[in-house]
């Protein structure tokens, strides 16, 4: 069966994030105050053919670790993409 899965890739704690910092700096001018700790990341959505959802998530975590993220600077996590 096909399971929709979402992988989130975020910068590891302590790694500089100029993109997040720039976005955060732009917010007050647009009237959004009180927003801190903005971090930019990436999300990937895919359908995985697997026995079960947990098997699909396991596969997603593995490919996220191997290809979708650079473990030197990034963390990756997989979650279900099912709607509802």
């Amino acid at each position, binding site marked *: 069966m096909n399971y929709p899965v979402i992988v989130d890739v975020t910068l590891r704690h*302590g*790694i*500089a994030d*100029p*993109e997040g910092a*720039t976005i955060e700096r732009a917010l007050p001018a647009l009237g959004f105050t009180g927003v801190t700790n903005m971090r930019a990341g990436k999300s990937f959505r895919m359908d995985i053919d697997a026995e079960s959802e947990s098997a699909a998530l396991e596969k997603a975590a593995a490919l996220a670790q191997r*290809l*979708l993220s*650079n473990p*030197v*600077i990034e963390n990756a996590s997989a979650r279900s993409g099912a709607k509802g």
Partner: protein
Amino acid sequence: MKIGVVVFPGSNCEYDALNAVQSLGVEAEFIWHTNTDVEGFDGVILPGGFAHGDYLRPGAIARFSPVMEAVARFASSGGAVLGICNGFQVLTEAGLLPGALQKNAGLTFLCQPTTLVVESTASVLTRGATKGQELVVPINHFSGAYTCDDATLASLEANDQIVLRYTQNPNGSRDDIAGVRNVEGNVVGLMPHPERAMSTLLGSADGRVLLEGFVRAPVGAH
């Protein structure tokens, strides 16, 4: 003496690297990314460009090209490997060099001359230069900010692995790092483009001392 220049789909500085090496009177040839060995070459250059479109992350997909296993074997047997710009990104993704390259601090692409200072001469790239020597070499990248964690930085310093620093940090690189080497010194990566600084007609000939060092006789096994 023969230098191989690896070509990934999306590489674009391969001709420039080839020309620069040939201008030093050294034979050079392209190596297509699907090759599974780099036999017959005395040194390998991973050139600049946008291998696989830089999609996902610069170097992330290229590191899985068949040729990269051969490059890793070549490196571990002491072969001279140089990654320029995108090639540096591929080498860090492949784990052949420590650290990673992130987007520039200003979040724009930068093509401009930079002044580098030679920090270590114990590498296949800098062995012809002198410590403290200043070189004008252009950069040309979007993701050139060198990043690593504290422990990695400490070990880079301890092992004299930082080969080049910017005198004026253009991109937010940690500790002004422009280029690093592996512990043995036979694998080097740098963001600036020495192949673009081979002639005063084009603005600078300071890259020559670097590439002349690289194409010298093989370093031999360590």
